């Protein structure tokens, strides 16, 4: 199989009449690349792929077939796409992972020259990712409150993070229209290695793009967070979809073990700032209620441990939370109230962020690990105030 990550471009000269660069020389083994600097505006969401399918029998899962007529990219075409080959190498994917699947994972368009899109790969990848991320969190941080757990899942596999990962992987968006590609005589193979989510008709804007104005699509309006005026852009969604589909593709070609390792290496290796994800409204009440749930017999007692002196220039107090003779937490503050609150929050965080270890002091094994033995704890659920 011919795999090339190098492309040759011929001499280019600006064509003053059209304003578009036009190549002058073209020989057989030379491919010209001119990136059009046209801006684009997308109007219609095109990655919400309908899942209408026909089947012989509802339980005959093999007979399901999408109603849209598509085909898969031949491997011979895919292997001639330098960005695709480079992406394959960059991610260290196994050789069994075919380039055509990788190319399919990058395609979100419903009708992209009749090529199959990444819908199925994405669903598969999402299931994989969702299981392994949740399993990791549930075992490693069993006492996280559910709202924080959900935000933590999002911090590991939400669209924004997947977008960052896609960017880090060096995935580029296919922005140029067919006309641009024709005029610049760009190789048809290049786009197979690029992220395709902009529909062809959107690549010809009916009005010039105004600087500083971004028109939201319907999908983007739905994701609008009015408090912070943030939204998940189509591009973010597209990157996220492609990254997840690449993970799904890994399962189809290399199996579940390889997928798990890939998720471990690329996603679970990120730093999760869990301690910054909590917001307490009534920490003391919460702590009292929590001790009630844990059936602690002694009442909660907040006591002053040390102070610099009330009359010192900048008084500092150290408060501790005690339950009987057990010290649950400690906090430093410049007033008694501050020290008290910090102490209570410190003891709550000590409980919520607990991570179990086994007898040898190592992290406990995950259910999907070999020779799994249950060593940790199961979260008993949050408390209600």
């Amino acid at each position, binding site marked *: 199989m011919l795999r090339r990550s190098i492309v040759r471009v011929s001499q280019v000269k600006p064509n003053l009449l059209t304003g578009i660069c036009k190549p002058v020389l073209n020989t057989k083994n030379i491919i010209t690349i001119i990136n059009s600097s046209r801006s684009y505006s997308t109007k219609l969401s095109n990655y919400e792929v309908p*899942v209408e*399918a026909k*089947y012989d029998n*509802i*339980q*005959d*899962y*093999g*007979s*399901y*077939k*999408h109603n849209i007529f*598509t*085909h*898969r990219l031949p491997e011979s075409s895919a292997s001639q796409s330098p960005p695709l080959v480079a992406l394959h190498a960059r991610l260290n994917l196994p050789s069994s992972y*075919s380039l055509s*699947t990788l190319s*399919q994972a990058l395609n979100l368009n419903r009708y992209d020259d009749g090529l*199959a899109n990444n*819908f*199925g*790969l994405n*669903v*598969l990848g999402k*299931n*994989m990712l*969702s*299981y392994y991320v*949740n*399993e990791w969190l*549930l075992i490693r941080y*069993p006492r996280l409150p*559910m709202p924080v*757990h959900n935000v933590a899942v999002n911090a590991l596999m939400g669209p924004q993070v997947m977008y960052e990962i896609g960017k880090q992987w060096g995935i580029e968006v296919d922005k140029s229209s067919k006309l641009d590609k024709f005029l610049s005589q760009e190789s048809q193979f290049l786009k197979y290695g690029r992220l395709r989510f902009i529909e062809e008709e959107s690549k010809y804007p009916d009005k010039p793009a105004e600087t500083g104005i971004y028109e939201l699509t319907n999908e983007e309006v739905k994701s609008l967070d009015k408090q912070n005026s943030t939204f998940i852009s189509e591009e973010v969604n597209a990157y996220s979809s492609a990254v997840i589909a690449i993970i799904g*593709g890994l*399962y*189809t*070609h290399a199996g*579940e073990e390889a997928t798990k390792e890939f998720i471990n290496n690329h996603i679970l290796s990120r730093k999760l700032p869990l301690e910054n994800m909590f917001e307490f409204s009534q920490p003391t009440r919460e702590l009292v209620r929590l001790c*009630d*749930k844990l059936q602690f*017999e*002694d*009442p909660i007692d907040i006591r002053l441990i040390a102070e610099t002196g009330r009359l010192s220039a900048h008084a500092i107090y150290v408060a501790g939370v005690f339950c*009987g*003779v057990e010290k649950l937490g400690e906090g430093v503050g410049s007033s008694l109230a501050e020290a008290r609150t910090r102490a209570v929050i410190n003891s709550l965080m000590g409980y919520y962020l607990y991570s179990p270890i086994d007898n040898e002091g190592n992290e406990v094994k995950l*259910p*999907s*690990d070999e020779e*799994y033995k*249950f060593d940790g704890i*199961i*979260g*008993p*659920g*949050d*408390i*209600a105030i």
Partner: protein
Amino acid sequence: MSGSIRQLARPEKAFNMSGLRNGSGMTYVPMRTIYLHKGSRVAGLKRDPEEVFLSNKGYKYGISEDNLKYIKGFLQDKYRISDELILQVLTHKSFGNGIKPYNEKLSAMGAKLLNLFFAKYVVNKPSSNELVINGKNLDVLGSPIARELCGKTSMGVFAKNNQLNSVMFWKPNTKNIGFASSGELTISAQVMYALVGAITFSYGKRVAEQFIEEKILQGNGNDTNSNKLETIAQVVVESATARKKSKNQQRAE
């Protein structure tokens, strides 16, 4: 309205405070007197657990053969899990204001594993579709049946048909008494997810997948089709599409 007075004292565990306060050497016995209130709720009063921890069907919360026998019978010896864990599986967040260990984290684990298992299950069937990737037909993903296999409705019905939801500790949020309208369906489904989650926690993913295959897909060894998940899911999907069709027809008329 009535109440009872209970004293919490631990004289046998009396401890010396001299470690904390130098030199005093006094012995300190913590003792509390608590009034437990019965009847209607009064703000600030602690309610008597005898009354609070009763399920809506009158089962008393706790580890007892009556409470656990349905789950134990379903799991049998092969997938035996601890009694505390079964009780946690059966307890919903709404029970006793969430003061007892409940099944939220268990069901999170179980739901994700079921999603993954059925995604793998449906794509790995032999297919004639020319879009297969390495023999896996991805076109089936996203179809109603593929979603419903691990969906709430079919899981809830499965739990009901297998009597797994006979004892559940939860609080109905409405006065409706229907299986679905009272929320019992959702709670039953959550118990199913939690059960799978509990097996995953106890024995690992491989055994849990074997459990799904053996007990949920094969229908617990008995031949009755109504106990099999795939049959249930098919009925759920077909009745949903039939309802949709008739609605569309009515609209057209």
